[in-house]
């Protein structure tokens, strides 16, 4: 237990600045979304109904929270640059113990931003008398999963860097590699197709909106996203384990 306390203390302390910065951004955005409610705006006649407004706010806040929670915390990069990665091979914690600590810290951030997103969703729920919690959870976890997937891919690539210079080289290769992949995707005709706006200029027709709502409020969606989230957590753990275990050539 003492060992994990040390490992987690180190990781939290190192990622603290980044977390504070993200928290400030998140709060600013969320407070901006709260402005109409604070000004009593939801009772005013708007183009969209209050429910649609709330859904938009909850969606933006949850997406932002999910993005911030799931994104890479820069720890691997910092460990490579400081030389700690090499030093960690001579320290008693095993690769598995370090990977557990990595996952725990990740889950801490996911829980933290999840609770914050839920708190804002609760405010909207009270203001509009519409339960948006299920939607918030699905959007939040969906965003976390999408960003975590990128993080896992990034962490896997970073694993091959042992020092600052290798990190730079691998970073450049990954950047151009990602660009190449996107370029290849762009060659498929369907990928560039944009949705046609409805007659009244709205992005989604009523039918599409209702379908989206039914997907977002469905318990099956929650279960599916949760299952994906668990799989991604396991994957994240495995990548971190491999990364911590991988010796220098």
């Amino acid at each position, binding site marked *: 237990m003492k060992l994990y306390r040390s490992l987690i203390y180190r990781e939290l302390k190192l990622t603290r600045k980044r977390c504070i910065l993200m928290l400030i951004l998140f709060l600013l955005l969320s407070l901006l979304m709260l402005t109409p409610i604070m000004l009593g705006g939801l009772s005013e006649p708007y183009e969209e109904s209050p429910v649609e407004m709330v859904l938009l706010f909850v969606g933006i806040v949850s997406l932002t929270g999910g993005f911030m929670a799931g994104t890479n915390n820069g720890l691997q990069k910092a460990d490579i640059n400081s030389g700690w990665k090499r030093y960690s*091979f001579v320290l008693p914690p095993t690769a598995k113990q370090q990977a557990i600590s990595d996952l725990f810290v990740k889950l801490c951030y996911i829980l933290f931003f999840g609770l914050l997103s839920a708190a804002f969703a609760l405010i909207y729920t009270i203001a509009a008398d519409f339960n948006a919690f299920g939607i918030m959870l699905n959007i939040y976890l969906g965003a976390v999963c999408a960003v975590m997937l990128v993080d896992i891919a990034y962490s896997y690539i970073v694993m091959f860097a042992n020092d600052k210079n290798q990190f730079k080289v691998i970073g450049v290769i990954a950047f151009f590699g990602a660009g190449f992949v996107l370029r290849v995707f762009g060659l498929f005709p369907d990928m560039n197709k944009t949705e046609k706006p409805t007659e009244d200029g709205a992005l989604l027709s009523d039918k599409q909106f209702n379908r989206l709502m039914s997907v977002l409020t469905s318990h099956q969606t929650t279960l599916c996203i949760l299952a994906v989230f668990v799989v991604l957590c396991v994957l994240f753990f495995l990548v971190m384990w491999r990364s911590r275990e991988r*010796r220098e050539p």
Partner: protein
Amino acid sequence: MNDYENAIEIKGVTKKYDGFTLDNISFDIPKGCIMGFIGQNGAGKTTTIRSLLRITNIDGGEIRLLGLDHIKDETAIKKRIAVVFDELPFHDVFNAKDMAKIFEGMYPEWDNDVYMKYIDRFQLPQKKKIGQFSKGMKMKLQIACALSHNAELLVMDEATTGLDPVVRDEILHIFMEYLQNGERSILMSSHITSDLEKIADMVTFIDKGKILLTGYKDEIIEQHGILKCGKDKLKEIDTEDIVSIRTNDFGAEVMVTNRENVSYKYREYVIDPASLDDIMLYYVHRDMKEWS
């Protein structure tokens, strides 16, 4: 805790890189000894240290630390050893107190009192960020961390390189104190041979990935000498006695092995004692035989 005779046993270790091979190296460090590991830059010191610490995997051979297998018993070994690198591997945002919090959970025998004693002794600030430390302060902090968990084996890779003589002397003095109970051992790689001459009991000399000499420092120094003669007299010296010859405008200086015998053999010549620096220098040029 197991009983062991040698703190480090390296047998036939091989590690191949593009353009460099650590070639079948073997040496032991008896318990309670300070081993100086010398060689020029790129000779294989760091590769050897990384191999024995399992920072890199070896291609062949066997390594035992504190009587334990370096792969099978890796976790057990790492609780009982300490490592000091040439550069501080700690993050700049931490301070000395943070490092204590990090290490106290990692090492079962971490002693905060000992750590704070070293911090006070080195006059290191407790709350100042490491990023604001000088090179000397960083090295002292690394050493304080390494000496605070009762490690039985201390491995140092160029730890004194880049430090001023005062700090180096202070650090060497602390290592001597650390070894006083006879249960601890040190492997210290350096190309500053004067440091090793001061504190090492044993010396291992590596060049181009091969161990050229290993043994007790005093014996190595006693066995070698520099014979001074004119260039025209070089033919009189048996090649088997010669490591290499340094020539200059005034004559030749020959590094000889088996100094006692050689001094009887060539009574007419002066044979000066050789320092570790000289020995290293002449061995590095052994392939050329004659150099200036």
